């Protein structure tokens, strides 16, 4: 067991974990933060994308021990006091989700993009999301949503 301290969505947790514990299982099974889902075992689908120390990562390909001392933001930590982020609103308004399983990862990947490129082209959006698979939407409305959010004044 290895002792870790991780701040997740604003709360600091201290735990003893097996070194092999994946960050996504730590979030889901240990902390009960099941907003972040798992879609594959090869880091292709991106459903489990979260933010670790300010950048997007696939939490199925990070060990919980690697996040020790770090700060994690999940989809559950995006809205503050019930106030949705511009991206969350845009996903709703542009119908960028159907079953919603890929949505947490898409939101986190899109947020990462907008932090680096606040005004991306559609081509840049498509490439920035290439590590996040969606089976329902054909992506077009996801691209529209990210573009709409990028046109907002407030940060994503």
């Amino acid at each position: 067991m290895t002792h870790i301290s991780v701040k997740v969505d604003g709360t600091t947790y201290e735990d003893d974990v097996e070194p092999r514990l994946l960050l996504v299982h730590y979030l889901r099974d240990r902390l009960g933060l099941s907003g972040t889902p798992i879609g594959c075992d090869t880091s292709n689908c991106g459903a489990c994308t979260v933010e670790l120390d300010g950048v997007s990562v696939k939490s199925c390909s990070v060990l919980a021990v690697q996040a020790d001392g770090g700060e994690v933001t999940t989809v559950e930590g995006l809205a503050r006091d019930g106030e949705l982020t511009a991206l969350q609103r845009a996903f709703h308004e542009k119908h960028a989700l159907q079953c919603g399983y890929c949505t947490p990862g898409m939101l986190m990947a899109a947020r990462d993009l907008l932090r680096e490129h606040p005004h991306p082209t559609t081509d840049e959006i498509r490439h920035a999301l290439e590590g996040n698979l969606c089976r329902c939407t054909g992506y077009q409305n996801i691209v529209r949503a990210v573009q709409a959010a990028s046109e907002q004044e407030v940060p994503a």
Partner: protein
Amino acid sequence: MTDQIVEGEVGRARLRKEDARLITGQTNWTDNISVNGLLHMSILRSPMAHARIGRIDVSPALARPGVVAAFSGSDLADGLGSLPCAWPVTEDIVLPDHPPIAVDEVRYAGDPVAVVVARDRYAAADALEAIEVDYEPLPPVLDLEAALAEDSPLVHSDKGTNRCYVWPLKTGEDFDSVRQRAEVTLKRRYHQQRLIPNAMEPRAVVVTPLPASGEYTLYSATQIPHVLRVMMSLVTGIPEHKLRVIAPDVGGGFGSKLNVCGEDAVALAVARRIGRPVKWTESRSEGYLATHHGRGMIQDIEIAATREGKVLGLKVDLLADMGAYLMLVTPGVPILGAFMYPAIYKMDAYDFTCTGVFTTRTPTDAYRGAGRPEATFAIERIMDELAVELGLDPVELRRRNWIRHEEFPYTSIAGLTYDSGNYEAATEKALGLFDYDKLRAEQADRNHRGDTVRLGIGVSTYTEMCGLAPSRVLRDLRYGAGGWEAATIRMLPTGKVEVVTGTSPHGQGHVTCWSQIAADVLGVPFEDVEVVHGDTKAAPQGMDTYGSRSLVVGGTAVHHAAVKVVEKARKVAAHLLEASENDLEFTNGVFSVKGSPDARRTIQEVAFETFSSHDLPDGMEPTINAEHLVDPDNFSYPHGTHLCAVEVDTETGQTHIRSYVCVDDVGKVVNPMIVEGQVHGGIAQGIAQALYEEAVYDDDGNLVSGTMADYLVPSAADLPDFVTERTETPATSNPLGVKGVGEAGTIASTPAVVNAIVDALRPLGVQDIRMPCTPERVWRAVRSAKEARS
């Protein structure tokens, strides 16, 4: 009294009620469910395609830390029946026994052989490796044609054959005589590769038993909680009234969750055995083996026509890969296609035969479109070939053969009565949006210049049949279930509304759309409607969600139930207003007496009056709630025209979709935003079949494309923007005028893309490219055509 002003809800692009939870992570996927004492189940699967099971020893697993129980297939065999096939398409179909977990023989790589139950998923995964199994290899059966040979090894040796069934459909004139008078005949062979549906949420099951009373709750990532309850009761022997099935949030299905799976039965059996709650969640690569695949057919198709381009007849011989076992509707999938090969075209003869074949691969079953994409692909591909043969533009050839809008209702050669449609209008609109003539000019220019990058244009004018019904037709097709759907509307005392539906959404937006339908009829605000679904206790009756049936059947049931509520409320309102029912008007949720607009009651007031029941008409049952079950008279037949322009790099074989335009006619539309989303996603999956995806097996029967790194699901960077428009020809088979839309895009798009690629390369001598049209296949086609010419 407040004035209620409710705009027409149906037809509005209402934002979805479903989204709020999904965009904030407040979800309830099956794997999220946790209860006290929950144990995790892991499943050991066969590493071989075909083998006899010798000794299985689970005891080393039991010695591992955290392990509560471990069972082999034979340990669980007592009390587990065969998994059901609900669609035995012929009387003499070969129906093999299908144990939920293999007992003495494994028949595909991934067939389950043993399970471990442990404190957490890590311990369960570790203990799996300790189980010892001796396999005695048997020969795999992989080639559909070779499997039918006399001397082929058998998948099910007790059945004496790999031929599952032969299903014929011959209508109109005799095809042979039509062929004789035809001036042109063309014969082609097309391959429908195996596909893995890839719903983003892997399958998962949680069982919570209550040993004292023998009650079980099964949470399952399923499209069909109602069917699952009936079937699981039959398989496990748990009485139906003691079994509750819940489909919590379900992350996509596309047919892959339209099944009665061994894992659900095994989880129930294990929970019954140990008396504790059990969870199983498949990993993606496990799902690639364990969850059914789609497609997997060889299509021999022959078309007979006149020189002027009049199609005279069609002959189709199918070989359909069943895989190792018959799942819920495995044999029926190609039969759904049988009716669609003639598509939108008029002809005199149709001769169809499908042979189902067992192989030692993961079973096949419904995947988005189920039979209809295959049929549409074959007919739309050969129509293009015929156009070339006759020197006609492919659109013109279609024009000469399709059913004209004034000919509806029209009974197709396959015996379906298409109620409505306007192929001319959809096609004209699509051609305009696509700028067809300009693209043709560019194509000619590139051909003339001998450009390395060629341009091709693909046409697909499809129709499909969805909302399987009525039930008696399903009986004639030997389908085990009915085609009805149920809805109940509960008017709550405070005027809010609960719609209880038997459909089971997993991304389609039923909560939003059913709210729109109910709000319109009841005249209540959209926000005041909640939709209850996916729980056999809360929504006890239903036939669930598949085959683009939900709106046309389930939505219609909601409509009818709401109409019944209004009629009941009218009686109460008339009584309260001391007026005759005939003198009441009902607008926007308000009953008013004709001529005295001040005498009025809102439907919410009526709901409360009914709740108190202080002053109801004599003899009236104290409720305005209503239930309605609908069994439609006919299928619904969406149609449309899809046009695709593809650039092909003839040097590398790389393809690039330059533009994609479609005009779909799905009848009246409840929510255009949702319809557009369904079309987008459908097109994407159809393109994925054309270009990227294939479940590849090696000669030993191992799945080579066994992870998401090898099975290429396209990303945003791989797909273009789609231009989607609609025409609107209402269905006549339901009061909403709606047709299904869930599968249309997938059915239409695959042939549009492949037609475009072949069209680009035809000047180089290429006639066909097998799917997926990988760069290497395109390159090889170009090269062999070049060699053939020189």
